[in-house]
């Protein structure tokens, strides 16, 4: 298998401008980046392997400590030095995802698995410098300058990834990482120059994307502070270069690769359904939500919506999907924000905000439109028993849109994350995410007790009527 090497760290970007005219600024910035590139190629560069006692001098013939790691050793030898806990976490994740890939087959592109599951191992490295490796052996001098000037300073956030077979020699890995650093510096220089306005220089930030085969892993540098909405031209260029479809986002910041060792800080569970064993139906296939969503349910965010908030929570789950697939930069709305949106479109009176009134699929569709510019298809069944015959429509929805579906009927609202459906027998099962859960973010409980689980058609109230909201992906990059 391959090993993914990820090298992160900051490089000191500092320069002095004695005039403020643009050509001078550009020249100095270019020189400064060239200088950083020399630093990266110097003998004092040291790479430290995170969670291990390993240090590497890539520009000193690949010298390393511990000494048994020679430049000719296969790079998989690094693994034995990395603290076991971290290795196990990554491997386990891989195993879980691979087994589902086998079941899903070709219906799902690699892009669906934004969660990193292709690589067996991610080895993290940090940039360091050895102060006791002086490049300049001169006597120490103090240089004074009394000219007025502008001093520019920032820490350049380097983040390179290199993927190589685990049998590849370490010397090849070191060279690849140094080359990756230099080419990232070059990219960063271009981005900084492209977006500069006088002396306002935006910090270039790297993002990694796992694009569908044959492209694979790419790193794109975007200027900080410029929202995705203003970077459409850049994305168009990249879509064309990588031959990506022009109607769905692949390269928005939210689409960037989420490494398994970087836990989500917001505390919500992501894609709990991946931990379930799907049902096997005769000639049945699985049609599931594409990409990443967060599980929203009762009692979260210190809001006690037990008994009335289920549709709001389903809507939050759907919004989280649009945010994480890069369709919006807006945060998942609160109950009040949802209610305000309905007031703003004229659907409800002002007193609605702060109330505990239920909402249905129509309201969910209205809010998605108002807050995110997302249109939805509404499906209506007059009786719950009819849902069993909606296999084809739901399957098609998950194939083409792949968005979570909100279903409301009787007195309950749920989220449908997918179906297992047999075209020949008509058998169907529904993958349900239940917003009525009131407990903590405990994956074990949620999957064991069926708060996220596969349900049969009997799950639905056979006599009640149901409305389904099927959100449509906007055709945009």
């Amino acid at each position, binding site marked *: 298998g391959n090993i993914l090497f990820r090298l992160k*760290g*900051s*490089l*000191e*970007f*500092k*320069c*002095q401008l*004695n005039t403020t005219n643009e050509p001078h600024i550009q*020249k100095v910035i270019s*020189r400064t980046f060239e*200088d950083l590139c*020399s*630093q990266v190629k110097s003998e*004092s560069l*040291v790479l*430290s392997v995170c969670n291990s006692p390993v*240090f590497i001098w890539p520009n000193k013939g690949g010298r390393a*400590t*511990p000494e048994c790691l020679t430049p000719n050793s296969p790079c998989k030898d690094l693994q034995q030095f990395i603290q076991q806990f971290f290795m196990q976490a990554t491997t386990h994740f891989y195993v879980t995802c691979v087994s589902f890939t086998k079941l899903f087959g070709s219906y799902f592109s690699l892009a669906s698995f934004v969660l990193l599951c292709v690589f067996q191992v991610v080895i993290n490295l*940090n*940039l*360091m*410098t*050895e*102060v*006791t*490796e*002086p*490049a*300049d*052996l*001169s*006597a*120490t*001098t*103090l*240089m*004074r*300058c*009394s*000219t*007025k*000037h*502008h*001093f*520019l*300073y*920032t*820490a*350049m956030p380097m983040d390179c990834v290199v993927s190589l077979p685990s049998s590849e020699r370490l010397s090849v890995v070191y060279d690849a990482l140094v080359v990756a650093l230099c080419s990232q510096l070059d990219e960063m220089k271009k981005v*900084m120059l492209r977006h500069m306005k006088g*002396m*306002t*220089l*935006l*910090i270039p930030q790297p993002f990694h994307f796992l694009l569908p085969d044959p492209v694979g892993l790419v790193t794109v540098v975007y*200027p*900080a*502070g410029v929202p995705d909405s203003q970077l459409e031209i850049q994305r168009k260029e990249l879509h064309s270069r990588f031959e990506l479809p022009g109607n769905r986002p692949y390269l928005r910041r939210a689409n960037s690769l989420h490494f398994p060792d970087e836990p989500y800080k917001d505390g919500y569970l992501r894609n709990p359904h991946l931990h379930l064993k799907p049902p096997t139906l005769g000639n049945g296939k699985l049609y599931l939500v594409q990409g990443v969503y967060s599980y929203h349910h009762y009692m979260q965010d210190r809001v006690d919506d037990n008994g009335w908030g289920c549709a709001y929570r389903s809507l939050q789950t759907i919004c989280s999907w649009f945010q994480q697939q890069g369709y919006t930069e807006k945060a998942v709305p609160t109950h009040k924000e949802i209610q305000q949106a309905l007031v703003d479109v004229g659907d409800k009176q002002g007193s609605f905000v702060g109330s505990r009134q239920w909402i249905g699929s129509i309201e969910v569709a209205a809010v998605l439109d108002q807050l995110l510019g997302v249109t939805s298809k509404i499906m209506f069944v007059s009786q719950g028993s009819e849902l069993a015959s909606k296999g084809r429509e739901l399957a098609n929805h998950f194939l083409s849109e792949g968005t979570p579906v909100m279903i409301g009927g009787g007195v309950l609202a749920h989220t449908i994350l997918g179906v297992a459906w047999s075209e020949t027998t008509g058998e169907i099962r529904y993958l349900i995410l239940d917003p009525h859960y009131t407990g903590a973010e405990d994956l074990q409980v949620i999957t064991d007790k069926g708060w996220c689980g596969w349900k049969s058609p009997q799950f639905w109230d056979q006599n009640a009527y149901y409305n389904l909201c099927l959100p449509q992906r906007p055709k945009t990059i």
Partner: protein
Amino acid sequence: MGRGYIVENMVEKYLSSLQAPDSTGTSCVTGLLIGQSTSQRDLVALAVRTPQRNTDGQGSPSINRRAWISLDHLDVEWVTEHARQVSRMLPGGLSILGVFLVTVPELSKEAQNILRQLIFAVDKHISKGRLWSLTNEDVTEKVALHICTETRKTVCRTFDIRDPKSSAKPADWKYQLGVCTSWQVLTCSVGLDLLIPVLDMRVLPQDMEKCMKEGLKIWAKQIEVGLCLINGKILADETEIVAGQKKNAKPVQQTFQAQILIPMAEPPSVQTSTVLVKMCSGSLSLKGMVHCRAYLQSNKSRVKDAAKVIKRDIINTVSSRVEMFLEDLLMEGVDNGSVEQVLPRRVFASLPGMTLCVCDYMFPDECLSDVSDRLKELLDWDMPEDSIDTSQEAIIVLRKNIPIKSDMLKSNGLFPSIDTID
């Protein structure tokens, strides 16, 4: 349980040679005690008397007679200044452990008060301008030794410098042969490349000292928290640096190479989206290579002790020579404001019969006899010129040979081209 000081035999000889009243008639002799104090042992390697001050108008014998029974002429400021200059001459691991006082019997009673005064004054003075911080593991007790000229009786006490109100604690003072023959040595060479911007409200050269200090403080912090490798290996803090020793093995002096690793840059504490821009009235740039050395008394020393002493030496040698340079500039009075000046160069001199060295700093216009004179004056040692090691640091600026750096400086339009300084 008091501290127990184990003292090099030669110190006894030296102290017994000191007489009070001395040739100038002062009724006491003060001096410094130098060595290393750890939680395991306190070793004293060297004793150095405070040099005579050239005071005018003190020739009359009648005045000297009166000086017999008073300590009025004790110049605390002079003692502390001597201490400060001596501490600059001590490589890492060696420090001023305390003060000694040789007096006539009549002054024995006052001696304790004087010693207390001196201990706290010396400590205060030498810790000014220190760029590293004491840790919990540092020994904060200093030794106060009193010797009576008649009885040659020694009274040894310690004071805790953290608590000026604390009372003295008794301590042991024992002479031993070969205390300093097998200390461990750590060495490294550190490359400096600091650019310190001088913000708009400051002006060179007046604010040079302040700017340098601030810039050096940041750099010193990076060194303090940096990773330390000993002989190319990274080891746990509590590991002994001398591996695989037999119990009760005879200690042998070993030299260890230290390496210090720091992050290339610190990520910003507050995420910004734009590059920071500051208006500056100038800048200071410190470049070159310094040679660093530190000593550890015990063959049981741990990695964290080794890291601590070498890092402190790195920080001290840079801040000392910058301080000396600025003092010199102040003294000269004339600042030709020239662009690039060479800082004093570090040289080493081995103490006879010991594995320990002291160091000194040579200005570009000085020669070996100046160093030798200083060693005699400040450390009371006769050091032959040929035993002064000047090979560790370069005299000249070689930078012209490195094309990238010179080009960069030229194109910035701020600095003229660098010439080698003969």
